[in-house]
């Protein structure tokens, strides 16, 4: 893996890379597995699996507590990973890197702390019409509690944000803009930097849901100048149950704790508690130590593959899939934004996504069907009962897209 020394015009050595992912080498329902549900979760390279295994075999111990050697080793590895993440997203310092369960918890943390203390009756929060439920429901709930208003940046037929009216939506009532970087159901890459710049003109902080972005492209929080950003380990070739919340230190400092208990305290008496410093103030209880360490291994994997190679390979797959789908006919692609990651959401004309997904599964092809946790977008905006979504990762091949296309032909023959 570390020797993947790829030049710009040399095509990606996918076969070699696939050897790093043992799960891919299996049959499902009597057919070779074709895993195209990477937007839901990516598979894990050996380096990540080994990191988890190694943690439990050699240094498992609670962090920041014991003075014994194992505890120190675990703490060191845990904090080294935090530093690796800081560097990876180019945050200013490690106080701004909070370990959470995933993007969902990251957003909930901000809603429950920053949101609850700064949003009042009549205030406004702005999201987009293409949010994952995890960047919609927490704000809906907060607005309901506070009698505040949730506003939506509209989405075009192509699946792009319509930003013409965005600046007019901003006012002194706006307390936060929270926007998805890359749409999980459409693949649209949103112009978040522009959104952040505009919001900042009105002193409105911006949170970025980067769950679908970090596995595909370099994410630089200081370049974006976002105030909060969250992403999940399992979508970037790392373990489940671990994610990162980035927050600018001046915001995190002012926010109250999210959960209470051990680790987040400095001193406790029967009467009162002095909270710990950043980032520990937000990390109550024993954290997911192996996950926190192993997300570091996932970052190493991405770095050694190289974002340029990864992005180029995935874009090639996307272009190839588009080409294949167009020649297939009777297929409608949902989400045709100019800037897209390797996600292709579609419906076969006259065939329910559920039927398509069931037959594909029987052929060993894993795709996602349904609303993809963006029910308002699919159901209300596009008036569809769901879509089929194929999402490609660094280890997917054109051959797998051929198999998907063959599978879709079969579905059409059976259903129509």
């Amino acid at each position: 893996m570390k020797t993947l020394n790829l030049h710009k015009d040399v095509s990606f050595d996918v076969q070699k890379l696939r050897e790093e992912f043992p799960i891919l080498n299996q049959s499902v329902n009597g057919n070779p597995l074709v895993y195209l549900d990477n937007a839901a979760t990516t598979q894990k390279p050996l380096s990540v699996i080994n990191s988890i295994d190694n943690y439990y075999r050699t240094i498992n111990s609670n962090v920041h507590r014991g003075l014994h050697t194992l505890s120190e080793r675990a703490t060191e590895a845990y904090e080294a990973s935090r530093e690796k993440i800081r560097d990876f997203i180019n945050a200013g310092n490690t106080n701004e890197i909070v370990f959470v369960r995933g993007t969902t918890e990251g957003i909930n943390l901000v809603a429950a702390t920053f949101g609850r203390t700064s949003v009042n009756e009549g205030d406004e929060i702005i999201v987009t019409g293409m949010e994952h439920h995890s960047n919609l429901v927490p704000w809906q709930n907060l607005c309901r509690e506070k009698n505040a208003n949730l506003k939506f940046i509209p989405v075009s037929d192509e699946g792009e944000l319509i930003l013409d009216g965005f600046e007019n939506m901003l006012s002194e009532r706006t307390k936060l803009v929270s926007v998805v970087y890359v749409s999980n159901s459409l693949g649209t890459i949103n112009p978040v930097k522009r959104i952040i710049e505009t919001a900042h003109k009105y002193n409105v902080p911006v949170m970025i849901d980067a769950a679908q972005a970090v596995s595909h492209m370099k994410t630089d929080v200081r370049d974006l100048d976002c105030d909060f950003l969250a992403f999940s380990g399992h979508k970037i070739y790392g373990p489940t149950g671990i994610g990162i919340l980035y927050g600018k230190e001046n915001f995190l400092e002012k926010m109250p704790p999210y959960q209470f208990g051990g680790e987040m305290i400095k001193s406790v008496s029967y009467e009162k508690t002095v909270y710990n410093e950043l980032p520990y103030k937000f990390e109550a209880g024993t954290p997911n130590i192996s996950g926190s360490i192993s997300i570091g291994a996932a970052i190493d994997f991405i770095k050694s593959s190289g974002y340029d190679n990864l992005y180029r390979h995935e874009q090639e797959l996307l272009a190839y899939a588009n080409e294949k789908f167009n020649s297939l006919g009777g297929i409608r692609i949902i989400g045709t934004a100019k800037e897209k990651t390797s996600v292709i959401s579609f419906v076969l004309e006259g065939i329910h996504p559920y039927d398509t997904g069931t037959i594909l599964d029987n052929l060993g092809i894993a795709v996602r069907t349904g609303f993809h946790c963006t029910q308002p977008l699919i159901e209300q905006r596009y008036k569809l009962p769901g879509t089929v979504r194929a999402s490609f990762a660094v280890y997917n091949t054109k051959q797998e897209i051929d198999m998907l296309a063959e599978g879709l032909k079969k579905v059409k023959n059976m259903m129509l």
Partner: protein
Amino acid sequence: MENKSVKETGDEIIEEFGLFEDWMSKYEYIIELGKKLPVIDPEFKTEEYKVKGCQSQVWLNADYRDGKIFYRADSDAIITKGIISLLIRVLSGHNPEEVLNADMHFIDKTGLKEHLSPNRANGLTAMIKQMKNLAANYTGKNA
């Protein structure tokens, strides 16, 4: 059909499924059944008749005639319709007590349940539950 017990019809389905060599052929059969399922009136395709817990939309209701229950159902997905068709074949035309005590062993024996992912199996369970609930409304009523 009306003379057959729930179990007998179930056994018949198990036998039919046993004739197919692979699941692709079984699906083809289910799809055929789905396509043949009688169309239902739009008046029965409303929120009130929806079965909750399915990935596809399912509408279900029943008539009660001469002490027996007759189901009517539809879905926007064909495979779901095929499965509904099997359920109707097994349960329709029986009295409410028979439906409530119905032996649905064919679902396990045909491998239907095992083959459906948990998401889809939940939908199947939800459909059967609703069919039994409808039957429960009529228990104790005389023909």
